[in-house]
């Protein structure tokens, strides 16, 4: 056995291996952090330190001056999948009282034949977001906007909690045997349409997506048209506008009838 220590630089193995490794690391760092960034005129770097920071990925504050502001109101609700999933009894009770003013269209038990949304059993986060968007003007409706204008944040939370507490009631057009259209189960990948069921409950439920089972077909169609034409714009990241624009009239008919027939 060699009696040289594996940690002494007098051991040629140590000096050579540490030297070569460090040499490669220094060269790679120089090339990656200094030379290559400076060789790219598009980066508009002000010097070596700027090059190093840019290549190391130090976050930079982008200039806000050029940001284009939309010419319409956008939603200010931040959705998370845990949002409003833990109802509280006091809130539900307050919501029941507040919801009396909603009953004329949405039904005393959150279900009606007025072609307005059936709210019984709807996810609280969904109802809350829509109320909030009506209040801020991110979503506009001649009937709902004035109702929402005077609601406080707590009112909206309470109404949402109350409706999510009510049991879902099947619609008069219930037909569970109706086969799901292809757009619901598989979407249309080539038109960038995810399956409806991937967010709206058949396959998975995603934060902010309403439960569509038993909703009025008239209402679903009207909303898809509103998304497609851009008259409704409060969907998160334009998800529904991008989908609705790509859907055919036949597909819109199919999904509206399908969801109306679901429990």
């Amino acid at each position, binding site marked *: 056995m060699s009696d040289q220590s594996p940690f002494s630089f007098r051991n040629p193995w140590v000096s050579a291996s540490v030297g070569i*490794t460090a040499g490669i690391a220094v060269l790679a760092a120089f090339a990656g952090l200094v030379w290559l960034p400076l060789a790219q005129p598009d980066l508009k770097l002000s010097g070596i330190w700027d090059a190093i920071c840019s290549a190391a*990925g130090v976050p930079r504050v982008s200039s806000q001056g050029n940001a284009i502001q939309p010419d319409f109101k956008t939603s200010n609700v931040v959705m998370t999948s845990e949002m409003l999933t833990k109802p509280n009894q006091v809130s539900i009770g307050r919501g029941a009282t507040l919801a009396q003013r909603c009953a004329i269209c949405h039904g005393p038990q959150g279900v009606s034949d007025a072609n307005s949304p059936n709210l019984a059993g709807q996810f609280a986060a969904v109802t809350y977001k829509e109320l909030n968007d009506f209040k801020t003007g991110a979503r506009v409706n001649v009937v709902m906007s004035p109702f929402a204008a005077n609601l406080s944040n707590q009112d909206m939370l309470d109404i949402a909690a109350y409706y999510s507490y009510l049991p879902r009631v099947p619609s008069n057009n219930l037909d569970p045997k109706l086969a799901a259209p292809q757009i619901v189960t598989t979407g249309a990948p080539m038109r960038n349409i995810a399956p409806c069921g991937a967010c709206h409950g058949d*396959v998975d439920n995603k934060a902010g997506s309403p439960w569509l089972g038993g909703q009025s077909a008239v209402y679903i169609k009207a909303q898809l048209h509103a998304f497609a034409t851009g008259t409704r714009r409060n969907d998160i990241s334009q998800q529904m506008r991008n989908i609705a624009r790509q859907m055919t009239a036949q597909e819109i008919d199919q999904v509206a009838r399908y969801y109306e027939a679901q429990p």
Partner: protein
Amino acid sequence: MLINKRLILAHFWLAFAVFGLALLLGAWQMFLRSPLNAWHFNPEFYYRSVTAHGSAMGYVFPTLIGMGFGYAITEASLEKPLIGRRWAWAGFFLVAVGAIVAMIPVSLGLASVLYTFYPPMVGNPFYYIGVVMVVVGSWIWVALMSINLAIWKRENPDKPVPLAMFANVAGSYLWGWTAVGAALEIIFQILPVALGLTATIDAGLARVFFSWTLHAIVYFWLIPTYIAYYTIFPRAIGGRLYSDAMARISFILFVVVAMPIGVHHLFTDPQVGPGFKFMHSVFTGLVALPTLLTVFTICASAEIASRLRGGSGAFGWVRALPWQNPIMLATALSLVMLGFGGAGGLINMSYQLDASIHNTQWITGHFHLIFGGAIVIMYFAIAYDLWPHLTGRALESFGMMRTQLWLWFVGMIVTTFPWHYVGVLGMPRRMAFYDYANPAISPQAFSVSMSAFGGLILLISGMLFLTVLIRGQMAASSESGAYKFAVPLHMPARIPVALNSFGLWLALMVGLTVVNYGYPIAQLMVLKETNVPAVYIGASR
């Protein structure tokens, strides 16, 4: 001398049982997403299957092979019983129970996150806990390898560590360190979310931690294969190892540079700066070096064996090799697949070239060719070589073994070459459904069908492999003698201490980790605005 045969056999049998099940899932997936199958299934089942296939093939199967082979090497090369037999069994049961704990939520559809976790997707906590149990079980093995080597060295201060044991311990240290990344990711990022303690996750940081594991894990899978190249192959074909020192340097290079290079898996991720991506790219290039050294040494060893058998000529010696010998065949086929896979790998590691194939089926083709092909075919060879010594019964179905190895090779080529091709055409990976009726995608339909057919060939080969082992288990007893490793051409009397110990190399490994990963990790840990809401998989409907 193999003493704890039951321990080693238990590892191999569990590994191959898991392999057989996962192979079945793999072949089914190939069929499902091909144009041979009409689109009428729930894609959720596909993702469940991909998660199960990946977790079994990535975490359980090679880990058990590495552990079982490691215990065999310890006893055979150090010529003494394994120290810590009870701990070894404990490690085995941790892996076995962990695999079951992980697979239950996966099969229930509660953790279809694919085996690389993909945060911010978060599944059922038991999936992650199961994976952690597998890793902890393997860490027991890492510790045992180190302890057995240390005790042997104290007892034999003047002898060089046998090459097989040196390589085995190198592999265990590499795994010990590289598994830390995924462990950090699971324990500090994913589990708190999965258990409901927080609702947001730093997906970027989690992915950086996983990249720490993701690349070197392949080298951990590769080490048993390389050990077989160096210490089984020359002996099995009646030759000698060309160079003992070259072998040690190859394994040392793996220890030093296999791990701090994982960011090349994140070339299109935004959270790591381009400068660090470039540095990782450079070091990834370096990791080709030990493989090139190995190919050279193994070919030279084959030439020695051939010339001893009377082979002659510049290339004529190739014909004189014992091609009837399954180990010869497996090694040659493995090297061919390693060559193709390695060439593809050079494209993946190039910062610019990667952009054209990143996240396409090319990548799936690449890692199946390297791992499923070059590596796993040598696992078969290891099993064929060890089996008679473990069971005390001879393996006699040589024809079946050769058929099996050829089928595996052909199946893997038929599976992965079309995969690479459709990847170049732009077919994304990790998708259950492709609309082959679309004119833009229909040209890929033939290639995808072809690779589904390759999957079927692989399944047949896998079943043949299990048949050979089962038949061996039932054969008449026969004495197979002591298990020996290949002898080098020139037995070194003295070995530099650097080639006989790990301190220096482990220090370099950790040092390079700090240089290449320190800043990207520190930055993401400090930045608070990098947290995003978790996306729960299998949430209540």
